[in-house]
């Protein structure tokens, strides 16, 4: 068993294999591309956070005293667009997925390395369009682009934003395509499907959604652009168009998109829980199949976003039933994770803290989704802060906590450095507390009737709004701290060995950081995944 204090070998790693900007910008190494993505999405995360800060600042008081209503519309729109399309959708797949999937399956790279690099460039171009929109007046349609406001009446940069999102969508499609082909065709000898790490299953299911759903929103954006330019009437009731048709086409992608955002995090959690309870995940097969089930069923429920849109009530009932059914695979995962932990040898490392937080917060988020799936309740709760709280619980309490968990877990592998354990745990607790203070009051606000996307509200709601804004500042601090110590660790962090956590998985058998080709010789897999025998945990980080 290797000790963690072993000095990093002088051998070349992917970080030292070629210096200079060109070697990074023209790389075909999936690990370097993952780092490029990591830098870009972190940039957009902070930009989206700035918009969130503006929102919570305005909402600290009932009157519209900080921003005009039009400006406020731009704030929540840009917050949504940036966070969803430029942070959450790429986050885990493009960073952790890109980095880890080849080593996890015993491959030297993804199936199409150059397409991988292309996907990053496409993402950057889409991001530049979005930055252009930000500095030339913004977008105020909501990230949902509902028509006919977006097609006819809005006088903000709808076309440019549409183009930016269209382009970013291609990045997502190419990542998904690469993962599907890689996982099908490049597994090491002996690595059958049911010996794969659950992280790989999760990214495979995510890739299914990326390739099947994203093209639909892409063509919908084309139609919006055509409508805005040529007024053919496709979504404008005045010309015979049907705005609800836009909503069908939009949500056909955007609902499965939320599963793009959560499935990879669930994959991370499966890895973390098993490593830090020293146990094979309970019900491995069920967890694997549930990932695919979520991907498939996730395509059948989009109409629950249209319950009050004048969609047919009959269709609403069908969507409502399907929305209850889609919760089942997620619940199966939660039960499996908690069963894994029962009587396991739990180690409260930083990734584990985030993972435990995930289980609690995702459960709350998921259950509140069921409230919304109920037709009758949705009439009362839709377009209120209840919905806002629900999706932030799953997206932030779920997806982002999972992302941070994975980032901390695999940070030693990616960089060869450990981060300071105390600070990381403090930050995890601050994130958890700040998050709950920000978003729990919003459930109450929504139930009491405060509408979303409003910059003013009745004075009796102020207490909850102030709690929420206070929580937001704590949450922001909680996100800043890891940024600081992770950057610090690159130079001053304790060098990490190949397997500081004592985890199973092919990625932990190669050096930290790995060499460019990952494996000198392709491994042959002869055992099941997660073969934990009371191994020592070397680090509690």
């Amino acid at each position, binding site marked *: 068993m290797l000790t963690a204090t072993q000095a990093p070998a002088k051998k070349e790693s992917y970080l030292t294999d070629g210096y200079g900007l060109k070697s990074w910008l023209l790389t075909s190494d999936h690990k370097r591309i993952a780092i490029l993505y990591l830098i870009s999405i972190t940039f957009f995360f902070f930009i989206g956070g700035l918009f969130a800060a503006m929102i919570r600042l305005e909402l600290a008081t009932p009157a519209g005293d900080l921003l005009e209503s039009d400006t406020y519309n731009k704030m929540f729109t840009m917050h949504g667009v940036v966070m969803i399309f430029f942070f959450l959708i790429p986050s885990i797949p493009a960073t952790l997925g890109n980095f880890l999937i*080849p080593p996890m399956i015993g*491959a*030297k*790279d*993804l*199936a*199409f*390395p150059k397409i991988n690099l292309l996907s990053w460039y496409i993402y950057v171009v889409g991001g530049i369009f979005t930055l252009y929109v930000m500095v030339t007046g913004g977008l105020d349609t909501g990230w949902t682009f509902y028509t006919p406001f977006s097609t006819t009446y809005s006088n903000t940069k709808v076309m440019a934003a549409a183009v930016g999102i269209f382009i970013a969508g291609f990045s997502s*499609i190419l990542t998904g*395509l*690469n993962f*599907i*082909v*890689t996982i*099908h*065709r*490049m597994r090491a000898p002996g690595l059958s499907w049911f010996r794969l790490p659950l992280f790989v299953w999760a990214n495979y299911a995510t890739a299914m959604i990326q*390739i*099947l*759903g*994203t*093209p*639909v929103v*892409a*063509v*919908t954006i*084309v*139609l919006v652009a*055509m409508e805005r*330019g*040529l*007024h*053919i*009437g*496709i979504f404008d009731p005045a*010309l*015979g*168009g*049907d705005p609800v*048709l836009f909503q*069908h*086409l939009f949500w*056909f992608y955007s609902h499965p998109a939320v599963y793009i955002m959560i499935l990879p995090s669930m994959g991370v959690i499966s890895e973390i829980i098993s490593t830090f309870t020293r146990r094979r995940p309970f019900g491995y097969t069920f967890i694997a199949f549930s990932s695919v089930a979520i991907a498939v069923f996730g395509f059948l429920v989009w109409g629950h976003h249209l319950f009050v849109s004048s969609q047919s009530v009959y269709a609403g009932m069908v969507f409502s039933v399907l929305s209850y059914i889609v919760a089942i695979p997620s619940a199966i995962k939660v039960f499996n994770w908690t069963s894994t932990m029962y009587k396991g040898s739990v180690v409260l490392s930083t990734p584990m803290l985030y993972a435990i937080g995930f289980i609690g917060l995702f459960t709350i988020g998921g259950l509140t989704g069921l409230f919304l799936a109920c037709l009758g309740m949705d009439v009362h709760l839709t377009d209120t802060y209840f919905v806002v709280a629900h999706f932030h619980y799953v997206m932030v309490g779920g997806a982002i906590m999972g992302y941070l968990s994975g980032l901390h877990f695999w940070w030693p592998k990616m960089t060869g450095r450990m981060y300071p354990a105390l600070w990381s745990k403090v930050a995890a607790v601050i994130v958890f507390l700040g998050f709950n203070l920000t978003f729990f009051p919003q459930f109450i606000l929504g139930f009491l009737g405060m509408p979303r996307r409003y910059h003013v509200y009745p004075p009796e709601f102020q207490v909850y709004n102030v709690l929420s804004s206070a929580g937001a500042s704590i949450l922001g601090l909680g996100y800043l701290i890891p940024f600081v110590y992770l950057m610090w660790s690159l130079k001053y962090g304790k060098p990490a060995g190949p397997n500081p956590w004592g985890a199973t998985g092919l990625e932990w058998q190669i050096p930290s950081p790995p060499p460019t*080709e990952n494996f000198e010789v*392709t491994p042959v897999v002869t055992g099941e995944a997660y073969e934990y025998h009371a191994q020592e945990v070397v680090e509690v980080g």
Partner: protein
Amino acid sequence: MASHATALRHHFENPDQQQEASSLGMWVFLLTEIMFFGGMFMAYLAYRQAYPESFAAGSAKLNVTLGMANTLVLIGSSLTMALAVRSAAAGKSNKVIVVFLILTLFLGSVFLGIKAKEYHDKWIHHEVPGANFHPDEWPKGVDMSHASLYFGLYFGMTGLHATHMVVGVGLLLFLIIKAGRGAYSPAWHTPVEMVGLYWHFVDIVWIFLFPLLYLIDPNFGRQ
């Protein structure tokens, strides 16, 4: 004659794995294309059933002869493309492969030429949605109020299709140059296969576009 074996990329174990990966990759890409065109087909479906008369009236202004010609041209190009792939796989001479590819390119260009003529005709008859949109009315007071929906979808769907054809033409040019230099052989002809898959897909889209856009009611207005 293959002058060199397949350019095996370093991250693949063997040429078969590389070929299988490329093939699966192209099929997954075509899957995304099905959903991409599918969104517009959904819009078409929604509005044709909402405004059947406007759609029939708009459709009857299309030139069915040119549509038929284009359909047959594209089917022919699919045949020549399939024969080009076959020639490469069966080890025929470079010349044979190049001839079939050039025929495919030629037929594809004929398609685009006919399309350009149709678009031009629409333009001069003011049937292009936008500022200049005022198509001729049907004499019997037929409901043309939603004709812009029909023509918008016509241009959207055929325009998207034509864009894919243009990309296909570019890919064919690339193949022709490479094939002329003897790049393809039974051991390695994956690029030809892949472009072939793409080309056939674009043909299939047109197989659906033709009846849906041109043949809604060819007897419309003629009684």
